[in-house]
């Protein structure tokens, strides 16, 4: 412990901070003895504590070294790179000012330049010396980040670099169901199932595309300047990028993507999926509803979007949200499943609404029975919904379940 105190003290002295030995030892002792913090962790914590106390943001890091792109094999390293800008992509977020691909003789790598870095813009095709950039890794793929401490120096001589795509994984044709990681460049043979209203000027089209294995959301950037896709038509999409948000995948069509219309009509299928989580919302339009007798659409205030004012027929359904703490899943339960789950027939629901002179009472009664509880559902995924074929409350936990998590926690 004395050794640890001395170590911390000398580290602090390097920053011109003089902390009495007793203070360090008291804090370290408290962490280790009272809070059962392992010594290594305690040492780091005490050091950080006093650094912070004295307003020092720890910046100790070794000076950067110039590396080749192929030498980037770990995250969190500060390096210098001489590289050529091979491609610029649409930033996904306002906090990114530029992103794209840079390359040198050894390979190519993604870069991200943060808006807050306040750095000048890079031009495609130009070569630069990028100083003090930090390497990063996501899902096994490396990138470099340009932040406030980075510098950009244009180079007179062009850096020899392989053309965009060359050092990169060649695109591969995948089925929708095979998309299981973000950041991959793939080809897809799909049919446009649905087009959505675009929510932003930077998006020219968004919607749902699918093949026989399932369907997936797509986004076509306005800047990509690609032809529009038509609902119901089938296409070969070349070089689209996979993306992920809260566990759900999508594909992005950007400037390097290609669209080719197909003669064939691709059949869109859906696979039965399972999801377990807490039921966190019973949405509007759940409970006792009226449907249009012609098109079966649910009515809003007695009006069908397609057929106007109609005499609706009653139905019972649930639109709800399951949430496992990592992602959300919308679920739809038809009358049969709903009746079974909440133990209430359509007739009983009608009766209940009649007595209360309010349809909403059926929804709150359903909420009362289901909200906050844990369920597992199974059924085909269509758009953002799982059309529930089977639903059951998750089994009460057993001691074994607790032990499993306990072991996982202990292993940290």
């Amino acid at each position, binding site marked *: 412990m004395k050794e640890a105190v001395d170590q911390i003290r000398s580290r602090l002295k390097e920053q011109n901070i003089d902390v009495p030995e007793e203070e360090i030892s008291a804090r370290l002792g408290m*962490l280790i003895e*009272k*809070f059962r*913090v*392992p010594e290594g*962790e305690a040492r780091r*914590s005490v050091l*950080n*504590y006093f650094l*912070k106390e004295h307003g020092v*943001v*720890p*910046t*100790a890091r070794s000076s950067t070294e110039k590396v080749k792109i192929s030498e980037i094999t770990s*995250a*969190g390293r500060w390096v210098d790179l001489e590289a050529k800008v091979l491609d610029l992509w649409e930033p*996904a*977020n*306002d*906090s*990114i000012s530029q992103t794209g691909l840079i390359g040198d003789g050894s390979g190519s790598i993604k870069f991200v330049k*943060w808006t*807050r*870095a306040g750095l000048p813009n890079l031009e495609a095709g130009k070569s630069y010396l990028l100083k003090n950039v*930090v390497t990063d890794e*996501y899902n096994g793929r490396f990138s470099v*980040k340009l*932040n*406030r*401490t980075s510098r950009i120096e244009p180079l007179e001589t062009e850096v020899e670099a392989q053309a965009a795509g060359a050092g990169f994984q060649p695109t591969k044709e995948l089925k929708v169901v095979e998309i299981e990681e973000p950041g991959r460049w793939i080809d897809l043979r799909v049919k446009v199932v649905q087009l959505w209203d675009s*929510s*932003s000027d930077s998006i020219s089209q968004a919607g749902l595309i699918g093949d026989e294995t399932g369907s997936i*959301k797509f*986004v076509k950037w306005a800047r990509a300047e690609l032809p529009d896709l038509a609902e119901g038509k089938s296409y070969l999409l070349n070089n689209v990028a996979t*993306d992920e*948000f*809260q566990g759900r995948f*999508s594909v992005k069509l950007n400037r390097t993507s290609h669209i080719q219309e197909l003669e064939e009509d691709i059949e869109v299928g859906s696979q039965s999926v399972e999801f377990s989580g*807490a039921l*966190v*919302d019973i949405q509007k339009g759940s409970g006792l509803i009226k449907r249009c007798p012609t098109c079966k659409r649910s009515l809003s205030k007695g009006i069908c979007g397609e057929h106007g004012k109609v005499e609706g027929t009653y139905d019972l359904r649930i639109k709800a949200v399951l949430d496992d*703490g*990592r*992602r*959300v899943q919308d679920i739809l339960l038809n009358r049969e499943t709903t009746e079974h789950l909440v133990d209430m027939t359509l007739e009983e629901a009608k009766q209940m609404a009649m007595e209360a002179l309010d349809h909403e009472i059926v929804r709150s009664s359903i909420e009362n029975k289901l*909200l*906050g*509880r*844990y369920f597992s559902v199974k059924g085909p995924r269509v758009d953002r919904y799982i059309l529930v074929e089977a639903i059951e409350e998750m089994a*009460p*936990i057993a*001691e074994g*379940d*607790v032990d499993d*998590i*306990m072991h*996982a*926690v*202990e292993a*940290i």
Partner: protein
Amino acid sequence: MAGFSREVSRRVFAGELKSSNYAFRDGDPQHQYAPQYLLTPTGARCNRVFLVGTLTERDDIGGDTEYWRGRIVDPTGSVLIYAGQYQPEAAQILANIEPPAFVAVVGKPNLYQTDDGNVIISVRAEAIQEVDETTRNQWILDAARRTQERLKVLSTTGPAPVSEGFSTADQAQPASPAMDAERALDHYHTDIEHFRQMVIGALLSLKQDLGRPAGEVRSEPQFAPEAGPSEKKPDSSKGKAEGGARAKPKGNTLSGWPNEDKDEVEVFNLSKKS
């Protein structure tokens, strides 16, 4: 593309939620619809949380209009929830639950800074529902699992020094668990062991709860609400149940988190103000 999807409800123990003090808006901070997040010490980026615990108190603290406040207790501590005129359904349900009772709450975490700089975390309930002990136990396991996952990411995330350049940015970067972890480490200098012990403590108490025969009998109290309170009382007398759990883990958190005591006092001040 957050616009298309609903925000996930994070699973965070009360002990961790209460020690959070870092909120930010995603994307353009000036944009009024930019979602607001609370980043917890283990890196849970919460726009919404899901809690299940014991409601130990609930009061109408409003003036002319009803404004309900409840205290939810889990094995690691307690957190206050609110429901008022803008959450009419939640408020009405909260008003009709007689504590003590197991409840599930879906809500938005709120960060409030007092004039003297103390930060208080509460949850504005979107939905609340009385549940049974089975659900409460499932939640503890659920919260433990998610916390374990975050702790694991934290433990493999590089130390704060390396990330100085960009993780102090108050603008959001694209979300990934590793990035949230990095930001959390940078802001809180998170003592991983503290939260690891918190999870272990919660699991140990859950295991003890499972061992209690009372827990098994009480598998369907939901449809007999009047039996609820009387069933729970014997447990409290054993000093191990939710009623008792409140006092006990609070002792733990008190030593584990020095600010706890202050927070408590401030919470009461706040409630008087509102």
